[in-house]
């Protein structure tokens, strides 16, 4: 056996049997695996201990691994992130939960001014291998303060890595990669996808992940590398750049309007897989960007700028952005705010007309 095969076999061993899981289960499994493998991993956050988290991502972990491996924190996001930075500087790999992405702002200074810059400012003397998990996005009638998508506020910060999975397999694999990264990582978990893929039709029942074809998640250890996009759907006519919930909406939208779109699931916004993006847009000559966040200065702006910088001479139509509006996320108008298949489909048709 050569080294490569050996390595693959060992990896398969570590990954173990694969079974269907929903996204909460796969995240829980990722945390469980890492608590088991690495005594330097520990988890804390509001309500994550005995209770297991308001979305149940840490259910059972305190009982299994002990009180000081997974515990509650005071309601102070600055303290949660700040103390995690100190732990990471000590040599641990803390994993903290911010209950909703909407509540990350009190800890924003610790992220921007501290976590992201400690390696740089100390010339590598100190590092911050910390992972922040936080549910983001709308679609659960959470109103203005349980629906936000603040990813662009993190992609602007040099030193931070920003990750957004779209399915249970990636959620676990990216989470483990994030925990093992020696840089601080924030993972935005699309809460609308916890139970099953949601394609943007609020009235249609969602298939639970367990019943989604091909949804298998290894029970053991594996990683999905940060910085590698995934072609979620191959296509020839147009590229859709999406992440999180919007990956599923993008696929459904393309199919609804019959455009043979290539859907790129970015998975990681920073580092970004520019090669995959560039190759796809050069192939299709058209690009639609979809995200749930407020449009102005959303991550779609960066994607649009990059695409036109890298693919200017290949573009046959203006790049379109289909996004949340430049308003807060209104409780009753959730589905008018959400960039659903109707709006994505219309954009696809527009770019195909040009």
């Amino acid at each position, binding site marked *: 056996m050569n080294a490569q095969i050996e390595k693959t076999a060992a990896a398969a061993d570590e990954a173990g049997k694969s079974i269907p899981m929903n996204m909460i289960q796969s995240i829980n499994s990722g945390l469980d695996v890492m608590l088991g493998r690495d005594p330097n991993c520990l988890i804390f956050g509001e309500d994550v201990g005995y209770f297991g988290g308001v979305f149940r991502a840490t259910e059972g972990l305190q009982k299994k691994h002990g009180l000081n491996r997974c515990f509650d924190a*005071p309601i*102070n996001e*600055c303290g949660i992130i700040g103390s995690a930075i100190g732990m990471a500087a000590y040599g641990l790999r803390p994993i903290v939960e911010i209950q909703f992405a909407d509540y990350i702002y*009190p800890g924003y200074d610790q992220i921007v001014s501290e976590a992201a810059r400690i390696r740089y400012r100390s010339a590598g003397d100190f590092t911050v291998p910390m992972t922040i998990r936080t549910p983001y996005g709308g679609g659960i*009638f959470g*109103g203005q*303060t349980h629906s936000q998508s603040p990813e662009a506020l993190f992609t602007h910060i040099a030193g931070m890595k920003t990750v957004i999975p779209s399915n249970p397999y990636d959620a676990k694999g990216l989470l483990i990669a994030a925990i093992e990264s020696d840089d601080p990582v924030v993972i935005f978990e699309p809460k609308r996808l916890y139970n099953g893929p949601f394609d943007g039709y609020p009235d249609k029942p969602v298939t639970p992940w367990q019943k989604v074809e091909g949804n298998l998640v290894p029970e053991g250890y594996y990683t999905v590398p940060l910085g590698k996009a995934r072609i979620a759907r191959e296509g020839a006519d147009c590229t859709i750049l999406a992440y999180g919930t919007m990956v599923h909406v993008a696929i459904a939208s393309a199919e609804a309007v019959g455009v043979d779109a290539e859907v790129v699931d970015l998975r990681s916004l920073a580092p970004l897989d520019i090669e995959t993006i560039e190759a796809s847009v050069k192939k299709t000559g058209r690009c639609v960007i979809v995200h749930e966040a407020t449009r102005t200065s959303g991550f779609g702006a960066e994607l649009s700028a990059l695409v036109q910088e890298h693919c200017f001479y290949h573009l046959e139509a203006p790049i379109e952005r289909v996004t949340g*509006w*430049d308003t807060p996320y209104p409780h*009753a108008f959730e589905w008018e705010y959400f960039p659903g298949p109707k709006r994505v489909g219309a954009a696809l048709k527009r770019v195909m007309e040009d």
Partner: protein
Amino acid sequence: MASPRTAPDATLKNSRSLSLRIPEPRFRPGETADFSSMEIPEAGETPRPAVDTAAKDMRELAYGLIRVLGKDGRAVGPWDPKLDVTTLKRGLRNMMLTRAYDDRMYRAQRQGKTSFYMKSTGEEAVAAAAAMVLTREDMCFPTYRQQGLLIARDYPLVEMMNQVYSNGKDPMKGRQLPVMYSSKKDGFFTISGNLGTQLPQAVGWAMASAYKGDDKIAAAWIGDGSTAEGDFHAAMTFASVYRAPVIINIVNNQWAISSFHGMAGGEGATFAARGVGFNLPALRVDGNDFLAVHAATEWAAERARSNLGATVIEHYTYRAEGHSTSDDPSRYRPTDEGKLWPLGDPVERLKQHLIQLGEWSEEQQQSLHADLVEQVRAAGREAEANGTLHAGDRPSVKTMFEDVYEDMDWRLIKQRQELGI
């Protein structure tokens, strides 16, 4: 006494290994709560200093417990506000109406008529008493658990329900979560979903009133768990430095979703004690004793109105039900903990007081309850006719793009067009 030492690195270093302490509540599901060791001062025990006493001369109040209603339902001690019977009855009614309203809205959520609801059951005295001390010109900065303030001010239940249902007549135009009311004319500041943010705002509002030579004061509420937020510290610092005419109410209902008060540092020190470090007067009050809350609020309000600055009040109470409709408290605390809670229920206690005064009876109580339930039911019917979250009328979608700014800019106009409306 320490003995002489030389080497700078040789001192005190030991090989005892440290361990991390994670605080845990005393009782978990399956256990029976036992509050027999809880120290509860008798009603009337805690002294009442003059409102102009220096904060440093009343630090002990932060460790006492202001109580007026004794076990026998009698009002005793220096904090007895000596309210007349009409006021007492009004207080009782306000608490009961709040509870009836909560019950109906909770059920409405369960019936799918709205997305979310939060009750204040067991803590009704906190808001009801304050609303009766403060005026409509004063500004309240509440959390999601002081709906009682609006109810005590006779804000129409139908309006509240319209918002809970995000229906066609929702005064918040469908934008806000069900329980996040706003009514400037009633001195009720728009509630935020972000914990703690209202506290420095309340201090700023109070500073503004003082700046203008006005005579209005502000009051803010914050949960025990949320005192951990930095905004709390900002508010305490600003209130202390600028001697702002504001009352900072800490509602210690023992729980913050699934985390007990110890997770916010409430084991070793009281929450009122936070005020001591800022040279603020800090009262600790039996939050289930309507009279005690009334008296403490009155004291703090008078102090504020006398330009003597801020007061911190810890209301010692118990969150009798789940955190919200999304919560299941039986997962993290004994189901009978609330029943065993030694400070009882604020409605029961005020009722008992009125009965003891000879001004009330169980029958009157029941008929008032029936009346209030009917009142709520009638309001409910009226509100439901205006629509519920998933049925009937809703606000015009157009309004989604309004009030982001004073005027819509080209982006919002364009986006509204994109939506095709």
